[in-house]
């Protein structure tokens, strides 16, 4: 296959056989209770320098409780996959937890833009679709997948993609390298203690990202019986053997919403926007991350039952989310 063009961006790539070896030895097929606190899950499964991916967005079913815990524990030098991100990447960068970003879409507000201008965060250009496609390749155990996006653009030039002559049709086609994140974070509606997980509504790439990643942490608003999973298998989004930790985290997407269960907290985002606009995310992080010991303590002390109940009350649209 003739290579016609190649991007100059740095990218993460792992040999498919290395990933197969990891899946063989690390992904447990035994049915074991994987429930952990968010603190313990992050201590065990997120290390400095890890490549971290997530699903879906900070407004809707994002893993915000887990993101805050990573910041609380002071992880450094993460390489973050910003495939549909808004607040997650911005908070990680503001806290100094990530030094590299694959974009996608950088974040919410100007904080990350400034960090890139000043060289504090390195970026490789991708697109939401090609980052998701890289996860699909990683989840399939193949080294790359072809796409007709990126072609002809500077996005390709500063990505890690290559353009080759399609060996079947002869035309130029872009190839994106498989991505196998070290860590994958996802918040779901329901999971059993083994990690069989359900998320309802549309999504970015909940299954591909779980299947591609070495270490998968799930946070869930509800823990359900294993029997419930077997009674309605069509609802299973992620099978248990992909999952390493199950964190019980009601309101784990807060301040984002969880479709059918609670709405996003607009007041909270307004506060965030104000502080972000003032370049004062330190104050935000102090209030919602550093000054509390856990997600539960944050909800109790910084949000309160009345507001949480109101967010639940406003989630009146249930259809499709059960």
């Amino acid at each position, binding site marked *: 296959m003739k290579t016609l063009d190649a991007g100059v961006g740095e990218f993460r790539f792992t040999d498919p056989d290395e990933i197969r070896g990891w899946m063989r030895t690390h992904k447990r097929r035994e049915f074991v209770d994987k429930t952990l606190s968010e603190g313990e899950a992050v201590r065990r499964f997120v290390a400095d320098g890890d490549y971290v991916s997530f699903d879906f967005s900070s407004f809707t079913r994002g893993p915000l409780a887990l993101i805050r815990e990573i910041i609380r524990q002071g992880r450094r030098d993460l390489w973050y996959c910003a495939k549909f991100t808004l607040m997650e990447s911005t908070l990680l960068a503001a806290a100094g937890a990530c030094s590299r970003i694959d974009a996608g879409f950088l974040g919410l507000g100007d904080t990350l833009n400034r960090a890139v201008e000043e060289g504090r965060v390195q970026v490789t*250009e991708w697109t939401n679709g090609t980052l998701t496609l890289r996860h699909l390749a990683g989840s399939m155990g193949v080294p790359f997948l072809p796409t007709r996006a990126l072609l002809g653009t500077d996005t390709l030039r500063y990505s890690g993609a290559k353009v080759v002559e399609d060996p079947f049709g002869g035309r130029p086609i872009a190839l994106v390298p498989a991505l196998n994140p070290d860590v994958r974070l996802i918040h779901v509606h329901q999971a059993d203690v083994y990690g069989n997980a359900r998320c309802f509504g549309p999504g970015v790439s909940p299954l591909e990202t779980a299947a591609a990643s070495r270490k998968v942490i799930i946070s869930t608003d509800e823990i359900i019986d294993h029997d419930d999973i077997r009674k309605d298998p069509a609802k299973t989004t992620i099978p248990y053997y992909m999952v390493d930790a199950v964190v019980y985290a009601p309101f784990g997407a807060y301040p984002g919403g969880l*479709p059918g269960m609670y709405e996003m907290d607009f007041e909270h985002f307004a506060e965030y926007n104000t502080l972000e606009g003032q370049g004062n995310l330190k104050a935000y992080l102090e209030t919602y991350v550093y000054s509390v010991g856990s997600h539960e303590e944050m909800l109790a002390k910084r949000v309160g039952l009345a507001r949480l109940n109101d967010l639940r009350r406003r989630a009146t649209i249930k259809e499709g989310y059960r």
Partner: protein
Amino acid sequence: MSEYTEAEVMIALCARLLENQKTAFIGFGMPQVAAILAQRIQAPQLVQVFEFGAIGPTPLTPFVRNTMGGPSNCYRSIAWTNMNQIFAQAQVGLVDYGVLGATQIDIYGNINSTMLGADYKRPTKRFPGSGGANEVASYCWRTIIIMMHEKRRFVPRVDFITSPGFLDGTPGARERAGLPGDTGPWRVVTSKALFGFDDDSKKMTLLGVLRGLTPEQVLAEMDFKPLVPRRVESLVPPTEQELRILRDEIDPAKTIIGRTGKV
């Protein structure tokens, strides 16, 4: 005549382009409002698709900014899929229109939403990047770009091609790069005018100017000169019906329609 904002002009002009019973890939923010307006007027069965995989929703109003993936925007969808599936559907040719915002555009419809400056490594201004715009501009049959009409946004050459227009404008440039054939930017909707692209030269072409403006006034706010045919249409400003639906039903909080100046 009633007063209206620049955003209301852009949204109304864009909404009028969207056809009933066609599929349209809808970007974040203003394109969403334009699609809802089209659904409320001439295109009740406009099938909106979103990059997180929702197909064919009938979004509830008032429109709530930011909750794109949430229940009110995804209300009464036909299907909920995911990003790989929906971009594959666009790539195989099932999506008729793409509707995108842009920071900067050039005469060949190339879009920049990544950075400003001569040196990529040292941007004078960084923006969030492609998001899903590169896929939309690559795959959809007809791409519509909505943007504020400001001189700094209409430049001879964009600093960074985030999403492909007609590239260097030479015949077949998109196809030579490997992009799907017969795709590309189709209309550019601004707060003052409507543009298309010349079939042969692929240059941006002035199709219409907002009633009350002259082509010269529109061109004065651009850093390149588009093609200007002998006949340039006079564009009807937002109608009473459009404004009523926008202001009373879709965006009473004015989160989108109130973010720009009055015309």
